[in-house]
């Protein structure tokens, strides 16, 4: 409510035209000269409306400017990128998908076969999918040797059209060296030629620096920073930190224009040219992955302040995670935990784990790159260790009751529930430190169809074990969530497998616990009667959530793995350390039951 002194005063938050106009009139009417004016009169009304519109426009403009002033409220990418620049953060560009292939040069037999054949950098290959062609290239020179059958194994090929830009350094020396939107900035290579008359052989390669730390005045280094409209800009040194380019130099910038995630999953590649007259073949294709879109505005707003908080140093666990996801665009998630949290403790170590987009395990080269990267940013005495993610599958068994009076096929209902569970898993799991809240899963199932009246849903945690057959094995599984010990039924059990008894007969058995911490092998006959075959084949730590099996000889199993199921003690289960919980479609069991709703 307006106080007498504030009558007619406009609040900048007022964006309604009518409100603005009323306040303008009220303000004028406070002044003696205009007190008796008829502001509803047609001429004055037109003037008042005009000024009110003008005022409203100012207020709107102020709101927009104010919004763009801060990182967390900015809406425009240019503003967000500018704020990120102040935080020394370079937003991630589009990333090329990478596939790993064997390149085989077909050199005909004969006495003059060369010792080596050199496949040049940017050797082109093409993949055609759905009428869309994607260009892939090698990123480095590949040397194939006769001794290896002219085969180069596991060669990375990157998606994207290779573009080469030339910029002449102007007389002022401060040229703008922009890289177009769509460039994968990790592919940028810069060469500097003395002048436009220089031959390509005179080009000197400069290296990219991601931090001014360690860059000397004489280093040929360049920096990449974000510019407007999704572009990036190359910045050279100033003579104090890195060498500057000099007027007349020609800057040659080579980079890939990538298609991002659209080029993931490609596995058919055709070389676009021969090498030294020899045809090139592609074999053993590891399908393309890690293609990624540019960082979104929301991601930049989330990561830039956190990157600033790291100061480019890996000290706390959060620092490790932020640096990894900022540096390696192919990582969907990363986690780090100190050795003090490991069991048993491993002081002085930091365990790092990462999940790539669309995959589960990183190639060894990426693991090494990750360790090398964080090692250069962590305290000297700390030893970073990479560990693969520990996948724990979530089994969902839901009994859904639906309104029998409403028409929908049971199959459709099951599909709806299945889709809802899958969506729940995608949204809430599949990452480190995720928590599965059973109540929310139940709600998601309820919401999957208006026909559903209620559901009774149970979850189990599953580890997939692939023991060698017919040999003594000892297996361990850590669920890091306590296991129910109150049930009358087994809370630890396996999927069936074949087991050879002492008398030589082979039975279809499974492992079960006795709720007292011991595991046994049981066999169910055709009538469903259970018989214990072996009574002590392992132990269960219910509180710690660990299961130890063995020594045990598995005779055979018909499935790709033996599933080890546990019933968690609590409704909510949490992934800790390097655990990733995920819901596989095959682990979801949906039962439906029609009920009459009064």
């Amino acid at each position, binding site marked *: 409510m307006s106080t007498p002194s504030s009558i007619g005063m406009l609040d900048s938050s007022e964006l309604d035209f009518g409100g603005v106009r009323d306040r*303008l009139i009220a303000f004028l009417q406070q002044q003696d000269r205009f007190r008796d004016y008829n502001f509803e009169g047609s001429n004055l009304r037109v003037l008042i409306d005009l000024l009110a519109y003008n005022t409203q426009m100012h207020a709107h403009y102020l709101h927009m400017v*104010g919004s763009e002033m801060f*990182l967390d409220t900015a809406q425009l990418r240019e503003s967000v990128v500018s704020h990120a620049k102040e935080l020394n953060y370079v937003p991630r560009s589009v990333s090329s998908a990478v596939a790993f292939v064997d390149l085989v040069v077909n050199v005909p037999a004969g006495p003059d076969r060369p010792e080596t054949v050199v496949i040049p950098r940017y050797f082109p290959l093409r993949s055609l999918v759905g009428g869309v062609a994607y260009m892939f290239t090698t990123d480095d020179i590949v040397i194939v040797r006769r001794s290896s059958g002219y085969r180069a194994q596991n060669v990375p090929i990157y998606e994207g059209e290779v573009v080469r830009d030339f910029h002449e350094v102007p007389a002022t020396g401060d040229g703008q060296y922009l890289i177009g939107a769509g460039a994968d900035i990790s592919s940028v290579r810069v060469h500097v030629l003395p002048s436009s008359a220089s031959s390509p052989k005179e080009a000197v390669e400069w290296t990219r620096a991601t931090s001014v730390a360690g860059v000397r005045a004489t280093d040929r280094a360049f920096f990449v920073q974000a510019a407007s409209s999704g572009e990036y800009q190359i910045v050279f040194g100033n003579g104090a930190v890195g060498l500057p380019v000099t007027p007349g130099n020609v800057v040659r910038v080579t980079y890939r224009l990538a298609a991002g995630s659209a080029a993931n999953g490609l596995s058919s590649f055709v070389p676009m040219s021969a090498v030294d007259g020899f045809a090139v073949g592609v074999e053993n294709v590891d399908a393309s992955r890690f293609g990624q879109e540019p960082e979104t505005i929301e991601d930049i707003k989330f990561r830039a302040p956190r990157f600033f*908080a790291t100061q480019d140093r890996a000290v*706390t666990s959060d620092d490790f995670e932020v640096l990894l996801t900022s540096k390696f665009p192919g990582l969907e998630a990363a986690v780090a935990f100190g050795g003090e949290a490991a069991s048993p403790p491993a002081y002085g170590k930091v365990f790092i784990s990462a999940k790539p987009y669309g995959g589960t395990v990183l190639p060894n080269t990426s693991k090494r790159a990750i360790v090398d990267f964080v090692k250069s940013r962590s305290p000297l005495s700390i030893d970073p260790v990479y560990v693969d993610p520990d996948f724990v599958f979530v089994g969902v068994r839901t009994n859904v009751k639906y309104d029998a009076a409403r028409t929908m096929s049971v199959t459709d209902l099951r599909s709806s529930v299945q889709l809802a569970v899958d969506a729940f898993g995608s949204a809430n799991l599949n990452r480190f430190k995720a928590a599965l809240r059973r109540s929310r899963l139940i709600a998601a199932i309820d919401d999957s169809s208006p026909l559903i009246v209620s559901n009774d849903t149970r979850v189990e945690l599953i580890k997939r074990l692939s023991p060698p057959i017919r040999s003594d094995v000892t297996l361990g599984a850590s669920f890091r969530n306590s296991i129910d010990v109150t049930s009358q039924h087994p809370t630890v059990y396996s999927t069936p497998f074949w087991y050879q008894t002492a008398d030589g007969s082979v039975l279809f058995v499974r492992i079960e616990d006795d709720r007292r911490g011991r595991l046994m092998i049981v066999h169910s006959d055709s009538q469903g009667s259970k018989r214990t075959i072996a009574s002590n084949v392992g132990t269960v730590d219910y509180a710690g959530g660990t299961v130890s099996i063995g020594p045990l000889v598995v005779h055979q199993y018909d499935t790709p793995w033996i599933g080890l199921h546990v019933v968690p003690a609590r409704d909510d289960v949490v992934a800790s350390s390097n655990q990733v919980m995920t819901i596989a479609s095959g682990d979801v069991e949906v039962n439906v039951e029609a009920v009459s709703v009064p």
Partner: protein
Amino acid sequence: MTSNTARPIERYISPMIASQLPDVYREEGPAFVAFIKAFYEFLEHEMSPIGQSRRLLEWRDVDTTLDQFVSHFVAKYATGLDAGLVADGRQLVKNSGSLFASKGTAAGLELLFRLAFNADVSVRTPSDNILRASAGLWEVPRYLEIEANDLSPLMVGETVVGSDSKASAIVEDFLRRQVGGKIVNQLLLSNIVGNFVVGERIVCAAVFDAMSGPVVVGPTSSIRAVSSGLDYAVGDTLSGIDGTGSGARAVVVRVGPRSGAVDYNLVSGGSGYTLDATVTITQTGNTVPAITEAAGRVSRLSNTSVILVNADLLTAFDAVPLNAAAYGFAKLPAANVNTILDAALTTNAIEVGTIESIVFAPPGSGYSGAIQIAVVEPRVAPFAVFDPIDGSRMGNNAVVEGFAQIGRGAIEQLRIVDSGLGYQHNEMFNMVRTAPTVRNDAVLVQAFNETQGFGQGSWRRTDGFLSSDQFLADNHYYQEFSYEINTAVSMSRYADIVRRMWHPAGTKMFGKAVVDLQINADLQITSAAASTL
């Protein structure tokens, strides 16, 4: 061309409206002018869009921005710190860079506790107290003694070079120490390359002009046993007991036998002796076929006093007639019967006293049985002055019983283990055995100040000491990657914040509560107490 001088943004334009409009408006349409002015006043109000847009630059500054905008600065520059950590968001934003940059350091933890709890904190690393086998570090101080110079303290931290030896070292400290009645200037050195030599100058370009540095005068760098008794053993430790310096210590590194060396018992030290008294050694009794003669001299006096003695004894002028034209005195050769005595005769002030010890160097060999040792002070004895106490003749009244020394364990070589301070080059002084047992008879030694000396040494740390303040590693508290936070704040309050903001991954955190004592120092003195005082 634009000017670089920024003009302040005019906050209020409305007062200028009238002057900005053409005259015709002011003359013909004052209502219009007033209307426009009123509209601008409306826009320029503090809460209005124009009024606020003119303050945008203020809002860009965390110190002058609106209170409701501070959270935006926190979200950008201090993310992770905003969970109720600090009440003053502006302060937090301005310090966040320092806090982030100092993660994992003691300084960073102090800043975090200051910002979050306004509390003091210290960090202890248990790894400092882990017992490490053979981890002791024996540190021997090395030093030079130099002449006094007011600029000497400025050499601390500088590299110095010997002018002649070209030896170099870093000066760790400069100390002025009082030794006896004199001041000794000591330079503690490290990183010594080569050997400095006594007598050269210390060159330190950062402090002194070229070649005007102080001269090296010591300390004692080696020592020689002049004479000793028997039954010493290698490893015996000797300590200096007199001389002009203090603190010298040496160990016996070689002993040898004595076969007929001169030794003595001082029955009476007499009086009126100087250190230049004549010691005469005569083999008595048995005739010994082959004697290597010893030489003796007085090495120490007590109860000293200074007396004046005439150096021109009449016996030297027995044949000079009284009426000779010139007597030939040393002081005035032309002196004769007409000259006054004070002008003619030489008078010396000499320090005399009671003999405390006699040195036989060399000690000789081949002596046997009793040996006669006569000690006469030639500048006092001829005057036949009698000691007022016992009536004996001063300068010739010492009673010394000599005998041949035969046995093992005479000290032949010493190694200095502590140069001490303040000894003069070539100075002789006495040392006594202090280990393994104390022995009262003195060993006469001679000091040589030749190069830098060294102190006794000490263990720098106790890492390798059993039953000390060191503990066995337990892979829990006592391990290389643990730290302990000592603060008055409850661990339950800070553990999560520290883990999130500061804790180096891979290390283990412990907390220890310390009592934050605040002593009220107000004194209340009652009148009764005051009167008692």
